[in-house]
């Protein structure tokens, strides 16, 4: 069995992952008070030996980061916190919620002992058993339906789509049942389900695995949608989504799973309906979410050098939009640029443009500019794929045009 990396252990805690695993004997980090957690971590082999100490282990994980530009996230500066990757942050949030509430369970393809195709559910099956971390057959509509049935009966399931694109098969259940049953039953049955998975354009994954489902789902009444972009907001949004009584779809991005950040030790939950102010500014409001945040921040560096002062907001909440934060920003800067990965037609940007135009028309000095992917299936060839995604250069040009 592969070695596992765990956060926050003192080196003296023996962790055995062999068949004689006994959960009562092992003190896992999340059961303790969180202030005891330390920034170091240990790599432990399957027989309980410490394989690597934390200094060498740190080198183990830094090479896979796919950041573009700063991850200027708002972390709490009071405590040192601990460093982890985005998928680990999701796992931490998930595990804390599973520990806190025995009704929380996970279902999806390969989430159990395989640990999930992006390792977000790693270690959970061993800790919580096969019933709380359920491996499903390849039937997205049906296991999403199962999750809805379990949610109506009192559980709080988290359904993982191996890739968001596969959840297109679950569209019937999500639209006709998940979004609807609370309403059509007159409030008698609630559906506190979380549907999550990686989406967005990856590195040459082909058209079917590069879907942006937020544009297809945004119309369904009854669901909420959030997109995470940093380890800090990933953990906070995961926890908030699980605690919410509404069905929530949490969009992750395939290329952001290895982002590293220092997050607080203490427990925190973010609001599902709030946008995040990434960089305050005066000249132009740039609205973005998920991976495009990093392209925007990279462009922001260039823009600052050229003398512009962009205000960057990661909208995070895709349904409903945080029009309060967005509105305040528009009232300040009077210019809006939306940068998204969705396709031009019917994307999140299209809805956001309409919402801002409707609500803040008087405050705009220029038409809203929306940079999105073209209305084409994502090609496989690397160069072609790059051209379908909005690049920092385009963002810089757009801001310059807007601010003329």
């Amino acid at each position: 069995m592969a070695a596992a990396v765990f956060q926050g252990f003192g080196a003296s805690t023996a962790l055995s992952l062999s068949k004689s695993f006994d959960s009562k004997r092992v003190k896992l980090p999340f059961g303790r008070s969180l202030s005891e957690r330390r920034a170091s971590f240990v790599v432990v082999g399957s027989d309980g030996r410490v394989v690597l100490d934390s200094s060498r282990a740190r080198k183990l994980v830094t090479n896979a980061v796919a950041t573009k530009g700063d991850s200027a996230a708002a972390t709490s500066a009071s405590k040192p916190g601990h460093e982890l990757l985005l998928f680990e942050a999701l796992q931490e949030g998930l595990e804390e919620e599973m520990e806190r509430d025995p009704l929380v369970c996970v279902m999806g393809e390969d989430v159990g002992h395989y640990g999930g195709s992006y390792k977000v559910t790693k270690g959970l099956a061993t800790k919580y058993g096969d019933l709380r971390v359920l491996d499903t057959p390849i039937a997205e509509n049906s296991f999403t339906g199962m999750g809805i049935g379990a949610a109506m009966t009192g559980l709080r399931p988290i359904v993982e789509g191996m890739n968001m694109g596969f959840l297109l098969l679950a569209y019937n259940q999500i639209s006709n049942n998940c979004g609807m049953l609370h309403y059509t039953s007159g409030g008698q049955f609630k559906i506190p389900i979380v549907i999550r998975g990686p989406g967005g354009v990856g590195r040459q994954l082909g058209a079917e695995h590069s879907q942006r489902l937020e544009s297809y789902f945004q119309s369904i009444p009854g669901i909420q949608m959030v997109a995470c972009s940093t380890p800090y907001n990933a953990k906070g949004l995961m926890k908030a989504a699980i605690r919410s009584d509404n069905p929530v779809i949490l969009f992750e991005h395939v290329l952001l799973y290895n982002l590293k950040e220092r997050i607080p030790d203490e427990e925190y939950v973010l609001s599902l309906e709030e946008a995040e102010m990434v960089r305050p500014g005066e000249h132009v409001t740039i609205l973005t979410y998920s991976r495009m945040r990093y392209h925007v921040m990279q462009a922001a560096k260039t823009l600052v050098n050229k003398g512009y002062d962009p205000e960057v907001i990661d909208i995070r909440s895709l349904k409903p939009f945080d029009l309060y934060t967005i509105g305040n920003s528009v009232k300040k800067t009077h210019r809006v640029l939306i940068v998204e990965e969705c396709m031009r037609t019917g994307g999140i940007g299209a809805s956001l443009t309409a919402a801002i135009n409707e609500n803040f028309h008087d405050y705009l000095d220029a038409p809203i500019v929306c940079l999105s992917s073209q209305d084409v299936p994502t090609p496989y060839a690397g160069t072609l794929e790059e051209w379908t995604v909005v690049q920092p250069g385009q963002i810089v040009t757009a801001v310059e045009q807007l601010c003329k």
Partner: protein
Amino acid sequence: MALCRRKPCAASQFELLRRSRGPAPASLIGAPMSAAAAAAAPSSSWLARLIGGPRAGWVGRTPRCSPRRFESTVAEKLPRFASGNLTMDFPGGKVAFTPKMSFISESPEERAHCYRVLDEDGQPLVHGSFVQVSEQVAVRMYSEMVTLQTMDNIFYEAQRQGRISFYVTSIGEEAINIASAAALTFDDLVFPQYREPGVLLWRGFTLQEFANQCFGNRDDYGKGRQMPVHYGSNKLNYFTVSSTIATQIPHAVGAAYSLKMDEKDACAVTYFGDGGTSEGDFHAAINFAAVREAPVIFICRNNGWAISTPTADQFRSDGIVVRGPAYGVRSIRVDGNDALAMYSSVRAAREMAIGEQRPILIEALTYRAGHHSTSDDSTKYRPANEIEWWRTARDPVSRLRKWIESNGWWSDEAESELRSNVRKQLLHAIQVAERVEKPPVSDLFTDVYDLPPSNLREQEMLLRETIKRYPQDYPGEVPV
């Protein structure tokens, strides 16, 4: 829901736990048992306990966690080869090989037998085995079947008169509705398609509550949001009907999974028609239930028609019952118009589902004696005399009536009294429901989420302003 015993079970997971479930005796799976043998069976036998008393103790429970994860090709469930044939080891277990090439036939020589207890004249068949039903339960079952039949007729007429917009009858399927409901407990979670209002009726949903939902008035539990017959009641454990076909089947499996985690003495039950089994959701859900050993009862009302599509155009297998073994699910074919057979089989299924933690498939053969809905005229695609024959000669209600009358539990006077009482109550319920006001405009925006978000509050404000400005364009009798 009781939140008992949800501790992580990681410790037990890797022990090779014995499943101490006793298999149901061979007599129940396989050859029929004679009535004499049933009566003479020793008190310790599982079947005798079931037949003798209403609730026997369970056979051993299965553990929550599967010990199988790290065993590779375990052949536990496959039959043993006593003959000593040479075998091959493939993933999934050992199979005997044969040098003779032969294809398994696409259709069996004989169709699966259909379990029935009463004949057409309501007399018990010789050599039958069934769960005894007391006079009280039998008379109650019959009364509810009559109530369901009357309710269907009256609401159908109300739709024709324009009083309600739509209705779906369950004519011909009263026995499936009521007898299966009678065999369950109120803790069992019901996931219906749309032709099972009898289950709600059995559990105590009043005629007034049915009428309120059909009229979509302020007293409707669904707050006027769904079409008629889309009933739902969380306190009666009946999950709101959703128009989509077969989507409730995976819901039932999910609910059973939840019950399994809670170790509750209850199962999930889901109903669907012959047409619904063509949906992908049916296939995946039943497969899943088998793999995950979920306590679900799948009841298929094979009534011969999916709107205008006869079963010959729906599938080519021998009905639905043969699909059970294809997924590893224990199955039975039952005469759906025989209330006692339905009752017995659902009772037995429930004991097995909960005691052995396994899914059970019941195919109830019946006939949709009414139209698909009020939007359908089935004489367009089937002969009117066929419909008439099933409605009269094969009526499940009169069949049960003959049985209870032959036991001296019913009479003509009781019959006419019941029918006129029910009819009076129904007409009254309709009149009352018609007069109750409709849900207010605010109910348009509540329950989309737990609390209305800002965009919905804004939209509600806009709507109210519009109604105030142009009141003549909006229905006057709907409260604002």
